[in-house]
């Protein structure tokens, strides 16, 4: 781990979400099998060079998912988990839903990248339900992914629009999984969640001291 000052120098500017996606892509090992969650995490695909040989999994039943389909390439039978039309890459494979989730649960998927409402310092994830009584609960594959992939990366803003931290001592939103998140990537910093606590990997346009002042979790 680099020194505190080194980490503060990592990036001068607060990152946009597209840059956060690029940081995540940089940390994905060559040849990994990766699932990108619906929404922001799909941006990570834009930063994975083909020569890295990363194979993208989509839980509706495919490995080797290619870029979003446009115009004549749109095929109603070929979508990603967000139901967006996509393309297939050479070497792609299709399989049914039970096989697709067995791949996660069975420990075959190297990384998944998910969004979150909250992550706790011990790696609990809340990303499926606000818990509001008028909110219709919808979980999809979030709980299966959270406990299935070998490494679970969360991509989120570090604070809500009203400034409340989303990296917290304990999640107040309903949980998706317990102790499952390994890394958190945000516009201000990236974090490793380890058994001994939260380690700051890098900061972007802020300092460790400033983060310590704004977060209720102990940062190492």
């Amino acid at each position, binding site marked *: 781990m680099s020194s505190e000052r080194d980490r503060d120098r990592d990036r001068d500017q607060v990152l946009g979400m597209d840059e956060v996606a690029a940081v995540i892509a940089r940390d994905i090992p060559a040849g990994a099998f990766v699932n990108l969650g619906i929404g922001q995490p799909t941006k990570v695909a834009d930063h994975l060079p083909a020569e890295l040989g990363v194979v993208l999994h*989509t*839980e*509706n*039943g*495919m490995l080797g998912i290619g870029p979003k*389909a446009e115009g004549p390439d*749109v*095929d*109603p*039978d*070929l*979508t990603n988990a967000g*139901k*967006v*039309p996509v393309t*297939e890459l050479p070497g792609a494979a*299709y*399989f*049914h*839903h*039970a096989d*697709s*989730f*067995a791949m*996660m*649960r069975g420990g075959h998927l190297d990384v998944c990248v998910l969004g979150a409402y909250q992550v706790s310092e011990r790696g*609990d994830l809340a990303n499926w*339900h606000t818990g509001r009584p*008028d909110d*219709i*609960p*919808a*979980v*999809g*594959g*979030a*709980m*299966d992914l959270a*406990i*299935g992939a070998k490494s679970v990366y969360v991509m989120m803003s570090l604070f809500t629009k009203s400034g409340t931290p989303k990296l917290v001592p304990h999640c107040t939103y*309903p*949980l*998706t*999984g*317990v102790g499952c998140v390994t890394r958190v990537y945000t516009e201000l910093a990236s974090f490793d969640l380890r058994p001994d606590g939260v380690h700051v990997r890098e900061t972007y346009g802020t300092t460790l001291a400033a983060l310590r002042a704004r977060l209720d979790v102990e940062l190492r």
Partner: protein
Amino acid sequence: MLETTDEAVAGIEDGSTILVGGFGLAGMPFDLIDALIRQGAKELTIVSNNAGNGDVGLAALLAAGRVRKVLCSFPRQVDSYVFDALYRAGKVELEVVPQGNLAERIRAAGAGIGAFYCPTAVGTPLAEGKELRTIDGRDYLLEYPIKGDYALIAAHKADPMGNLVYRKTARNFGPVMATAATTTVVQVDEVVPLGALDPEAVVTPSIYVDRVVPVTSRQYTVQGAR
């Protein structure tokens, strides 16, 4: 092998549990659902990944007031307004099941498994009421099979025996649902002659398939790509 979708859904009784294939619109057996609406069975329990999109398919069945309960993983979508309104009015019951558990519970039903322990949802609100067991230091929940009276699925091609192949991600729940219902009903884009399907490439073997109906007109498109 049947000629009309109306014949294919004949005999479905009120109160039946029906497994409906599809993920969003891909693999959704629209023509069978339309026939089910005409057939008139009500008080149905629908097991499917979603709870209808727009005004077609499951949304149309819901709008017709035929569904008592929906068991699915992801009811809330940008265009699930039919379900949303019924749910908020208390007119349809909802059981949310994690997507992988939905698939595995259906698979278990088709494979004669009495129940199984699964790590998904441990420590979450969806674990409530489920037996927790620690095996080799990891926590699991006891999950029971989901069996259907009928499965309505869409496949790409069938041969006259009922062997099936699917197309791309439209495969999704089809192969597991086909195994888990008393009567499995399949709409296909095309029926090919016996021997025309490569036995090595058959995805759903005929033993799981009871009724097949070819449907020539494709009624669906991709969300956002109309």
